[in-house]
Structure formats: structure tokens, C-alpha cells
């Protein structure tokens, strides 16, 4: 069960925190939006960190999910869970259709295309006023309820959001540790070699793009029901950049790194007043500094440092004959 050790630790943390601090603002409010960001970052990390496909428009899928839930529940009276499914269906379809033309591009071109997608969705949300409420936003979105259990308090939102985050982390870990996950990483390592190993790179790219979009849509629906009110500003270009920063800060190609990045960048603005005026600038600075000094990410960097220190402590012992970590892959 070594494979899921990190997930157990995270679960433990998520359960213990509210028991220790049941009425703490940071736990029941800030941690909820951190968990929401973690869902988004983990999904984006599959695309960006593992498959090496940059997206500067991830907020678009978040927005489509949120607005589908908002519109369908307020204007057509559908229940929130069906609305959530509808949002994912719509987002998944859009991602699927967009994937082919967009993912044929590489590097800067892919960055520009996803940026464009984000901007277009943003404009559509503002312009289709009859449907979305335009720049004034859309209110009166009903809360979620689970078998008669209304998710109406901060603590309940904490429970639901954390549970979904843990589920998404579990799904992501499973994907990475599978045939499809290896295909993603291979794509990043060498596209031509991946093809030569029998991987249909077009299908693989489309798959991961759709999965990332689906997780963003899920987060969007949760967000809409939690906030009860949404406006296009929550889904703009800066939010896409924020998500990219979370993935980069934590460390690309590390699921827990993405969770870490999401938590750090959600808590920092709450803790530091200076963030209020300079938020965008600070995010930009973090991105630059990470790229220059710690491209492997803070979480991954710290973890590797810790491992090296531990190994140094054990160093006097004779080196094992069997390569270390032999059992790692046999856990299932």
C-alpha cells in the first residue's frame, strides 16, 4: 500500500484539522477554497506536469462547469447533481472537440491557443447576458444536498470539498500509475519515441485534455453551488495563470505538489496583507523565480532534499544488495 501512503497522510490531515479547530476561519473557509483550487491544480497537472502540454486557459473549463450548473438550476429548475453532470458533459464535449486542432500545436503556439480559448469563453460569458446575467453575474444558485443532508454550513462545505479533493487525488494517482499514465509521461519525454512504442499520441493527448477539463468542470459546479453567486471575473485569464502558478510552485509532474501549490497560494494571500494590492504581480514574481531557481518546484525540491538528508544519515550502513525501492512497484 506504499503507493497510496501520501493519500492516507492527506486524508488524516483533512480529518484532524476540523476536529482540532472546528470554528477556525482558516479551516472552514480558506481551506475550502484551497481544496477547490487543489482539484483544479491536480487536473491541470495531469495535462501540464505529466503530459507536458501547457494550458493558459484552464479557467475556461472551470467557468463552463460553474455557469452550466448556475444556469441549469436557476433557469430550468434542474437539481444540482444533474446540473453537475450536464456541466461535465458539456465541458467534456467542448474539450474533446477542441483537443484535436489545439493539441496539434506545440510550445508557444499551444500556449497562445489555450490563452485564446480562455479569452473567448470569458467574452461569451460576459456577452450572452440573457443566459449568464453578463458582467453582473448570476445569483440564486441553490445549495447542494446529499440524501437530504444540506450542504449549507462552512463546515459541511469543508467536508464535501475535501472529500471531492481526496477523490480527485486518488483518481489522478491511479491514472499516473497505469498504462495511460506512462503514456502521458512518455509523450512528455519524447513524442516520437512514444509513437514508436505504439502509443497513439493524438488519442492520448485528447484523453488527458478531456480529463483535465472534466475535473475543472466538477470544481466549477461545486464552486457555483458553494458561492450561490458567480460572475465572469472568477474565470478570467488571471485565474488561469494562478492555476499554472500553483502547479509550477508545487512541482510539475507531482500530484501532491499540485495540492501543496494550491494550498500555499490560497493561504498566502489570506495571511499576507500585501497580497491584496499586488496579487497579480506577486503571482508573476513567484512564477519567474520558480522557473529560474527551482524549476522542479518547491514541494518536489523539498521532498528530494529531505530524502537526500535521510539517505546521508543512513549512509554508514552497507549498501543493500537488492536495489532500493524494489518492493515499490509490487504494491497494488
Amino acid at each position, binding site marked *: 500500500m506504499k503507493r497510496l501512503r501520501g493519500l492516507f497522510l492527506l486524508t488524516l490531515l483533512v480529518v484532524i484539522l476540523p476536529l482540532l479547530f472546528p470554528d477556525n476561519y482558516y479551516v472552514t473557509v480558506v481551506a475550502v477554497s484551497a481544496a477547490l483550487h487543489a482539484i483544479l491544480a491536480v487536473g491541470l497537472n495531469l495535462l501540464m506536469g505529466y503530459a507536458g502540454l501547457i494550458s493558459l486557459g484552464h479557467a475556461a473549463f472551470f467557468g463552463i462547469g460553474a455557469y452550466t450548473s448556475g444556469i441549469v438550476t436557476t433557469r430550468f429548475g434542474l437539481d444540482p447533481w444533474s446540473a453537475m453532470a450536464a456541466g461535465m458533459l458539456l465541458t467534456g464535449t467542448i474539450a474533446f472537440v477542441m483537443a484535436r486542432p489545439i493539441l496539434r500545436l506545440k510550445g508557444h503556439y499551444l500556449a497562445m491557443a489555450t490563452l485564446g480559448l480562455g479569452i473567448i469563453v470569458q467574452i461569451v460569458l460576459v456577452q450572452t447576458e440573457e443566459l449568464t446575467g453578463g458582467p453582473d453575474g448570476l445569483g440564486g444558485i441553490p445549495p447542494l444536498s446529499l440524501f437530504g443532508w444540506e450542504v449549507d454550513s462552512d463546515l459541511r462545505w469543508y467536508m464535501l470539498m475535501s472529500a471531492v479533493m481526496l477523490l480527485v487525488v486518488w*483518481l489522478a494517482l*491511479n*491514472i499516473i*500509475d*497505469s*498504462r*495511460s*499514465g*506512462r*503514456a502521458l*509521461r*512518455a509523450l*512528455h*519525454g*519524447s513524442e*516520437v*519515441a*512514444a*509513437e*514508436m*512504442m*505504439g*502509443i*497513439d*499520441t493524438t488519442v492520448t493527448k485528447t*484523453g*488527458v485534455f478531456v*480529463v483535465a477539463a472534466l475535473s475543472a468542470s466538477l470544481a466549477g459546479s461545486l464552486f457555483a453551488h458553494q458561492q450561490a453567486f458567480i460572475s465572469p471575473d472568477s474565470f478570467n485569464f488571471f485565474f488561469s495563470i494562478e492555476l499554472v502558478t500553483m502547479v509550477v510552485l508545487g512541482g510539475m*509532474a507531482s500530484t501532491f505538489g499540485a495540492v501543496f501549490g494550491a494550498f500555499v497560494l490560497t493561504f498566502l494571500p489570506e495571511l499576507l496583507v500585501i497580497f491584496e494590492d499586488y496579487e497579480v504581480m506577486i503571482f508573476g514574481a513567484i512564477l519567474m523565480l520558480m522557473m529560474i531557481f527551482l524549476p522542479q518546484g518547491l514541494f518536489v525540491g523539498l521532498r528530494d532534499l529531505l530524502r537526500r538528508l535521510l539517505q546521508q544519515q543512513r549512509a554508514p550502513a552497507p549498501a543493500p544488495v537488492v*536495489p*532500493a*525501492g*524494489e518492493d*515499490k*512497484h*509490487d504494491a*497494488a
Partner: protein
Amino acid sequence: MTLLEVQGLTKSFGGVTAIADLGFDVPEGQVYSVIGPNGAGKTTLFNMLSGIYHPDEGSIHFQGREIIGLQPHKMAAMGLSRTFQNLQMFFNMSVLDNVMVGCHLRTGSGLFSAALRLPGVVREEREARRLAREALSFCDLERFVDQRADALPYGVLKRLEIARALAVGPKLLLMDEPAAGLNDTETAEMQRLIRCICERGITVLLVEHNMGLVMRVSDRILVLDYGTRLAEGTPLEIQNDRRVIEAYLGGEVQYAV
């Protein structure tokens, strides 16, 4: 039996004709080498055989089937695998994972069953791991199993690329300069490995500049010059071919066969 049949193959890049009206047959179960000076078009030929480049003209039959127009992953599915002149390792993965990628076609679970980690997926993972370890031990790489690929020396990476290509389970293996950059010991190991691969029933198409190795390991040799066929035959025939000696090998070159 002929495994690979090439006829009238032509490919140019802008004004440069890399391959011109080339034809040859590769018999099954042999080591067939392609030699020629730098820029003769050997890698270009490999890229066409593996579906990476589209020929301008000509036909390629693999196991009797026309394969021009098939994408590389389709070629892999048909039983053609290859290594690359400039390493194309997955440096972001462990040695075992690199080779497990090679098992992609021998397993079949999709994204969604993987996400839910259904029982079939777990079973398949175990099977892929077994196949990968087998390929690794065949190439004498067991001791590197859990290392990251980017931490390995060049000679090991050359063999790792072969292990990964073998994991695909090919009938035909294209090797583009497997001995380039290797020292004498490693080159001798590579020679043995190539023969072992052939003895397993895998046909080998080899591009290599090390003439000693080529002469010792090959059943037949094709000599390319400016993308055209200069000569073809057994190592002995090639060594005594007047045109080859003049155009490429140079009069005074001697071989230890």
C-alpha cells in the same frame, strides 16, 4: 521468406534528395545492415520505414502489406520497432517505466478503468512489469531497474533503448547506430546482443558506422551512397566489391572479420 520489401523509394527535402529510387529486400530472421557515409540517407530511410516520414514515391511492404501512410504507432502494432540515432529516452521516467511503455500494446486498459483502478488494471500492471523485467534482463540491465533514466551512463542508455524496443514484441527491429559512442568492451557486448536478438527470431535492420561490427554481425549488407543503392550482398561480397572500395571504404581499409 522476405519480411520487408522496398521498391522505388524516393524522398527529398527541398532540393536535397536524401533517398532516390531505392529498392531492397530484407529476408526474415537475418541481420541486415545498411551502411554508407554521413548523409547517405540511412536515418531518412529508417524514418520512412517506421512511418515518421512520408516517402515521395515508392512502396514498402512489411509482411506482404503496404505500410506507407500508416502512423508510427500503427507500425509498432504491426511488429516494427526501432531505436534512435540520437537517444530518444523518456528521461522523466525510471528505467522500468521506460521499458513498461514498450509494453503499451501488449496491455489494453484505458484511461477510465485506470482512474478507478479496476482489478483488471492491477493484473495488467503486474503482467507489464514482468514483460519489462524480462526485456531488461535480456539486455543485462536488471541492476538499473529502479534508477531514473537521466542518471545513467550513455552506454547503458543505448542498451535501454533496445530493451524498450524489444518490449514492444517486434518482428523487425530497426537499430540506428547502436554502437556509436561505445567503447570496445561495450561494442563487443552490443555485437553479442544483436546476435542474441536475431537468434530470438527477430529480424534486425542495422545502421552502423563501425565496419568491424557490421562485417561480423551481418548476414547481408546494403551500401548506400547519396541515397541510392551502391551494392548489396554478403559481408564478403561487399568487402571485395570494387565500387564500394572506391566510393566509400577506401582502398586500404582492412577488416578484422
